[in-house]
C-alpha cells in the first residue's frame, strides 16, 4: 500500500480528484450598497433578482447588504470610512464628493455606466391628505396661510435638494427668471416647514405616520409607494404644474471593491439595473425606468409631469451646491433669517 501511494501517478490522481471536488467559486460574495433614504423597497426587490441572476450565470452566491439614509449623510459616511462596494445616491454631487474628498472612485465615474450612470429617474410631487382638504394644487399654494409643508433637510437629504431646486425653478419661471423673487418664495416656503428630517424616508414617516403637515414634498416613487401601501383613502398625489427631473446616479466604489475583491460582481450588480429585468424591478417600485421599452410599458403608472432639468436652470450640481447648499449658502441664509 505504501509503495502504491508513493507512485507519482497516484499522487496526481488524488490531487486531481480533490480539486475536482471543490466547486468553482464556492465562496459567497458580500456587497455593501450605500444608498439614499427611500430606496429600501427597490433594492430589497432588486437584490433578490440580481442574486438569482448571478447565481444562474456564475454559480456564485452574492449577498447584498443595504445601508440607507439621507444622501448627503451617506456620502459623508463613505468618505469617513464606511466600506461601500457601490453607492446609489440621490444626486451626482454626493458621489462627486466621494470621488474628490476620498479618491475612492475616479472623477469620470459618471461616464462609466450608460445614461450618465443613471438607470432610473424620478421627480418631486405633492402628497396630500385624502380629499386634499387644504386644496393644494401647485407650488404657490404651499405658502398660503395655514399650510404646513413637510420636506427633509437639504443639508443632508438628496430628495430635499431636488425639492428645493424644484421650488426655486418654479419661482424663477413664475417671476420671469428673477432670482430675488425666487429666493423670497423659497424663504417663505421654508417658513411653512415645521420639521426637517434628515432624509426622505424620515419625512414620509413624519407626514404619514406622525400625521404632521398638510403636504409632503416627496419623491414621486415615495408618493406612489405610500399611496399603494396605505391605500387611496389615506393620501392623494397632486402633480404640480412644473417639477424637476431628478436623476439619482449609481457607481462602483472602485478602491473599496478592489480591496474586497468584489469589483467584477459590483460592476455587474449596477449593470444589471439597465437590463430589462432590472428596469422592470425599477418600474415596479415606482422609479421611472431609463429604458424606453420598459418606460413605455409602464407609462400608465407614471403621471405626466412638466419637467425641467437641473442643467436647464442651474447649470450644474457644482454651481447649485455652491450657491444654495454650501455653508453660508442661500439655504443657510434662509434658515438664519427664519429663526
Amino acid at each position: 500500500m505504501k509503495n502504491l501511494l508513493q507512485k507519482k501517478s497516484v499522487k496526481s490522481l488524488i490531487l486531481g480528484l480533490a480539486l475536482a471536488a471543490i466547486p468553482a467559486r464556492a465562496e459567497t460574495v458580500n456587497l455593501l450598497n450605500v444608498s439614499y433614504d427611500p430606496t429600501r423597497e427597490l433594492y430589497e426587490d432588486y437584490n433578490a433578482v440580481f442574486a438569482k441572476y448571478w447565481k444562474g450565470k456564475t454559480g456564485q452566491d452574492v449577498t447584498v447588504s443595504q445601508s440607507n439614509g439621507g444622501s448627503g449623510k451617506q456620502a459623508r459616511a463613505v468618505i469617513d470610512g464606511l466600506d461601500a462596494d457601490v453607492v446609489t445616491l440621490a444626486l451626482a454631487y454626493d458621489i462627486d464628493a466621494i470621488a474628490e474628498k476620498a479618491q475612492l472612485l475616479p472623477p469620470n465615474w459618471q461616464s462609466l455606466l450608460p445614461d450618465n450612470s443613471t438607470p432610473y429617474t424620478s421627480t418631486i410631487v405633492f402628497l396630500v391628505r385624502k380629499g386634499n382638504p387644504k386644496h393644494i394644487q401647485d407650488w404657490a399654494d404651499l405658502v398660503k396661510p395655514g399650510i404646513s409643508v413637510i420636506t427633509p433637510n437639504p443639508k443632508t437629504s438628496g430628495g430635499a435638494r431636488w425639492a428645493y431646486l424644484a421650488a426655486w425653478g418654479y419661482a424663477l419661471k413664475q417671476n420671469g427668471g428673477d432670482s430675488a423673487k425666487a429666493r423670497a418664495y423659497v424663504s417663505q416656503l421654508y417658513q411653512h416647514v415645521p420639521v426637517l428630517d434628515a432624509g426622505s424616508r424620515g419625512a414620509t414617516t413624519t407626514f404619514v405616520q406622525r400625521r404632521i403637515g398638510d403636504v409632503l414634498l416627496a419623491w414621486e416613487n415615495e408618493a406612489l409607494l405610500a399611496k399603494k401601501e396605505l391605500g387611496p383613502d389615506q393620501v392623494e398625489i397632486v402633480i404640480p404644474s412644473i417639477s424637476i427631473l431628478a436623476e439619482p446616479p449609481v457607481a462602483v466604489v472602485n478602491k473599496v471593491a478592489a480591496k474586497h475583491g468584489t469589483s467584477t460582481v459590483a460592476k455587474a450588480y449596477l449593470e444589471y439595473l439597465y437590463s430589462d429585468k432590472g428596469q422592470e424591478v425599477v418600474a415596479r417600485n415606482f422609479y421611472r425606468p431609463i429604458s424606453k421599452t420598459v418606460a413605455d410599458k409602464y407609462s400608465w403608472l407614471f403621471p405626466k409631469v412638466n419637467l425641467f432639468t437641473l442643467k436647464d436652470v442651474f447649470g450644474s450640481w457644482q454651481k447649485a451646491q455652491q450657491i444654495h447648499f454650501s455653508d453660508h449658502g442661500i439655504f443657510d441664509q434662509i434658515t438664519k433669517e427664519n429663526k
Partner: protein
Amino acid sequence: MTTSFQRAHRISGGDALRGKPTKKSSGIDRNTEDSLSKELNMFSISKPRGYLGSAMILAFLLANVTPSRAQPTDSSAADTSTPTLQDLDQKIRILQRQLELRDADDQDKAATTPTLSTGPDGFILRSADGNYSFRTGVLLQADYRGFIGDTNYNDVKKYSADSSYTDPNGYLKHFPKLESAFLLRRLRPTWNATLWRYYNFVLTPDFAGGTLAVLDAYGEVNYWSALRLRVGKFVPLVGLERLQSSADNNFVEYNFPILLTVQRDIGAQISGNFWNQSISYAAGVFNGAADGANKDIDSTADKTLAGRIFLKPFANTGLDFLSGLGLGIAGSWGSVWGDSVNSELAAYKTSGQNTFFSYRHNAVDAGSVRAAGNHYRVNPEAYWYAGPFSLFGEYVLSAQKVSTSKPVHDTVAADKDYIEDNAATLANQAWGVSASWVVTGEATSFKSVTPRHNLSPDGSGLGAIELVVRTGQFIADPKTFPIYADTLASARKATSFGGGVNWYASRNVKWVFDYEYTQFEQGAKNWAGAVKDRDAEQVATARVQLNF
C-alpha cells in the same frame, strides 16, 4: 399584515445597518418631557409627566395658547382667534417629532463622538468605537519619615574625621543621629494609550527627589489573553511585591526580598493567562541588571532570561475562601558585568532608606568589587486573599559572580583572566511575610482595597481601614566577608518587624502609617575597633498617597 412600507415607516430615518438603534416612537419619555416643557416655555407651563402630561398640555393650550410660528406666518393673518383642536394636535405632534429627530441625531453623534471622562481611573479620552483611548493618571506619595534615636551610619566617615566627635582611639563618642524629614517619595505621572484596540503603550517617569527617571516605557500587543508581547522597559518578572503597583503595596517601603530584584530593565517578554487567569505565565529576555537597578544602558552583549509561572488553583472552583490563593515561582539567569566606574552591584537599604550593606568599592587593601559574570535569581512566591484578610510572602535568592580587581584593570575585556582568579559566586537571600486585616470589612486583593463608603466630611463614610503586620530577613552570603564587604560597615544579617495602618479614604486617596524595627548582625565597630552589631533602626513613616 404589515407591509414593508409600513414597517419602514416605523424607522425614524437613518441607517439600521450601521447599528444605530431604530426607535419606535411610543409616547413621551422623561427627557422628551423636560425638553417639551422647554419648548412650551412660551406657554408658561410646568413640567408635565407621561401621557397625563401630554393631556395636561393639550388642555392648557386649548384654554390659553396662541398658535405657533409653524402655523400661519403671513403677518396679515396674525391669528387672534382661538386655535382649533386640530391646530393644537399638530403642535404637539410637531414637538414630539422634533424631539425624536433630536434623539436620533444625538445617537448618530454618539456613534462617532469621542468621550472625555474623568473619575477614579484618571482622565480618559476614548473614541466612540472604543478602539482608541488615551489615559493619564498620576501617583503622588508624600512622606514624613521619622527616626527614633537612630544612628546615622551614612555619615560615620564624615564624623570620624571630626575630633569633636571622636575619642583618642578614633571611636565616635557622639554618634550622629538620623534626621527626620518630609519627602516626596514618588511623583509618577502615567500615560497609557491604546491604538487599534490591540496595541497598548505606557510611559511612566518619576520626578521624585528632583530628578527625572524613566521607569516604565513599553509597547504591548494584546490580541489574545493567552499570548501578549511586550517590548521596552518594565519590571523583569522577579519579585511578587515588585510586580504589585507601588500604590497598592501594604507598607511604605518594600520588604527585604525586593532588595534582591531588579527595579526596571529593558527587554522583551511574552505573557498570558488561561482559564480565567488561574494560570499565568511570562518569559522574557532582558539586558540584565544588578539588584535594585533601574537600568537604561547595557554595556555588554550578555543577556538575562527571566520567567515566571503563577497559579491560582481554586480560582474557578467556586470555593470562595480559597479562590484568592495564588502560588508561583519566578527566576532569572544571565550574566552581569561591572567595571571600575559601575560595579553593577547593589547596596541594600533598610525601610528607612539607609544603607546597611554594600560591597567594597575603591578600597585600597582588597580592591573594588564588581559583578563578574553569571547571575541567577530564584523567587518562590505566594499570596492568599480571603475577604478582608490577606497573607503575602516570598523568598528571593540572588546569586552573583563577583570579583575584585586592581584599579588599573578598568575594562572587563582587559582583566577577565584576573577576575576569574579572584572570583566567587555570592548568594544573598531574603524572605518576607506580611498579613493584613481590613477591619471595616472590605475585601482586599493584589490590587488594594476599595472602600464601600468613601471618607466624607459629613461623617456618612469613613473609608476603609486596614491593619498590617510583617516581618522579613536579609542574609548575606558568608563568603562575602571580609574580601568583598567590610564587616565593620556592612551587616551580615538584617531582620525587621513592622506594623501599620492603611486608611483608604477612597479608591484614589490613601493614608499610611507604618512603624518598622530593624536589627542587624555586625555592620559597625565598637570603641576597640572590633566588629559589633549595628544599632537597630526604628522608623515611623506617615504617607499621603494620591493615585488615579
